[in-house]
């Protein structure tokens, strides 16, 4: 009785290890639920297969790639493992561009509405826990899973690479790969946030799943087509434009494309995994003058991708804030 009556419990950070905060109880339960589910197993297999496929393709080509002296990145063995392809299979980071959304959507599309359908939501909300804790627990648990999965894969790749090639990894490569992992997690987080938001919005899990997939398809397929159409319709012929104007138009359309999260992800991963990428937009000859085609240091690469990363984080936060807004004052009815 005492533990229940104690009002300080839940507000203070001084809780003992034997009495975890309800939030962590929820996170633990969510993670256990995900791991035991078939859904996660299928996703895991999917990711493992693509990872194995793209890495083995890269492995078989690695000798040629490393021997290519013209490529300024040819010394980064492990980054090359992640980005090399011979054309049959896209490299892992491109795969993740569309696997990430699937991962995020499938872990979140029924977060709230399935609980409501099963009648568990009312029960949980009748316990002394804050409402936002449930949302946050759903988000944190799925993201923890995805993060640790990706980190494990990266570490496996590094370990495997060291075993097979005998080449030691450099600190910069480690940081870049960890950065890449974090970026992927944030990207999955965006889709997770979006699908949790949709799971609150729609009462049926299938509706929210379909809507999430629809949004994803729109951004990966149709958005680019629409932007291209608009560009063709509005841009005067290239001959009539001065070079600066052409650049401005180009910039505008690139920025429009960057409203799609997948574009942000592609930009950011490319820069992180290919150190020689120095700009994500067009460069003039004047800007390029005197530049040596050499890899950029990690800090410079990070500077380039920073807008993309913060854009992704902002989009994730937006989804999450919308989910909060919908959920916090809604009537919980079974």
């Amino acid at each position, binding site marked *: *009785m005492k*533990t*229940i*009556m*104690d*009002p300080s*419990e*839940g507000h203070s950070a001084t809780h003992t290890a*034997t*009495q*975890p905060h*309800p939030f962590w*109880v*929820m996170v633990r*339960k969510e993670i256990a*639920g995900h791991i*035991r*589910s078939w859904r996660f197993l299928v996703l895991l297999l999917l990711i493992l297969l693509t990872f194995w496929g793209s890495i083995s393709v890269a492995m078989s080509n690695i000798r040629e790639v490393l021997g290519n002296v013209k490529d300024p990145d040819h010394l980064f063995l492990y980054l090359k493992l992640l980005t090399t392809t011979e054309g049959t299979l896209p490299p892992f980071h491109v795969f993740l561009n569309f696997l990430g959304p699937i991962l995020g959507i499938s872990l979140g599309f029924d977060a709230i509405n399935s609980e409501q359908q*099963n*009648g*568990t939501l*009312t*029960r*949980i*909300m*009748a*316990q*002394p*826990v*804050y409402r936002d804790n449930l949302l946050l627990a759903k988000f944190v648990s799925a993201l923890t899973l995805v993060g640790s999965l990706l980190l494990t894969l990266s570490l496996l790749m590094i370990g495997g690479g060291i075993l097979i090639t005998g080449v030691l990894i450099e600190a910069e490569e480690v940081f870049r790969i960890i950065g890449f992992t974090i970026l992927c997690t944030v990207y999955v987080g965006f889709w997770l946030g979006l699908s949790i938001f949709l799971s609150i919005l729609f009462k049926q899990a299938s509706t929210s799943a379909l809507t999430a997939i629809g949004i994803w398809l729109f951004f990966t397929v149709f958005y680019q087509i629409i932007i291209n159409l608009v560009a063709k319709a509005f841009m005067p012929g290239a001959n009539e434009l001065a070079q600066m104007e052409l650049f401005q138009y180009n910039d505008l359309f690139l920025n429009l494309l960057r409203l799609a999260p997948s574009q942000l992800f592609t930009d950011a991963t490319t820069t992180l995994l290919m150190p020689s990428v120095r700009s994500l937009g067009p460069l003039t000859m004047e800007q390029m003058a005197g530049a040596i085609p050499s890899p950029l240091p990690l800090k410079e690469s990070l500077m380039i991708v920073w807008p993309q990363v913060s854009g992704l984080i902002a989009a994730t936060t937006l989804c999450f804030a919308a989910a909060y807004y919908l959920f916090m*004052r809604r*009537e*919980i*009815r*079974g």
Partner: protein
Amino acid sequence: MNHPIIELKRLTKRYRDFKAVNELDLTVTKGEIFGLLGPNGAGKTTTILMMMGLTEPSSGTAHICGFNATKDPISVKRLVGYMPDSVGFYDTMTALENLMYVGELNGIPREEVEERALATMELVGLYGDAIHKKTAAYSRGMKQRLGLAEVLIKDPEVIILDEPTLGIDPSGVKEFLTLIVRLSREKGLTVLLSSHHLHQVQQVCDRVGIFVKGELLAEGNIDTLSNRLFAEKSYEIEIGLVNGIDLPWKDETEMLQMETVQRVTVEDRIIGITSSADVTPDIVRFFVQKGYDVNSVHKKEYGLEEIYEKYFENNITENIDQ
């Protein structure tokens, strides 16, 4: 010990133009079993949700154990166990895991939680195999019991049960209600249960509130309710005769001259008499003296069913009038 545990003041919930609950005032004292009785859609569940802080009232306040349910729902939820009308569990987890999860959410330390969960399950009558069974394989009655166990594991002061007997078979209902009464008496729990099953409410509740279209029409124990309701109608006596009577009945005027008799209805072999006092012996004597062959005498008494029906009848006619 007579201070109110549940105190609702002018509690109102509007959904656009529709008033689900209209200026409800209700007080339940400690240790009482209160039955909220009403048809489907009367606003029972909405009222309960407002008490649990699961939905916000449009106006008015709900205080449970002294805490405002809208502003401080966490404190209320620590002390109140709520069982919704459709109990659902995480089907991939066993019953014990489900119960332990709720226990932990209530801040029961991890080393204690299993022990307490097992004790609570025994209390509600779940033993043996049932403990480690997945809840997906549970029957409705077992789920209801597990729901009660979950309400009790937090050691509440108040338990609120929304349609607790829905979907269980009659013997199960009886057992379940006896269990609730026993627990309430043993632990001094205050119980609020909602139902549209008057018989069940009649069996267990100390006090009943009749709730129709968002308004509490009457409140009190069953005697006071029937007295208040049938004050003007009082007694109805039905006399059954062996032979039918020709209409108009020749003795009707004489019958009406009797003191207290208000109305006489004749329907072939059955004569209904309404009177403001219990004059059954006089009426029987009257019939015998007139030489009628009295076959049966039936004095109507009002139970909850009549009370309930009367309210709903009025309700229905009002609807038609509108």
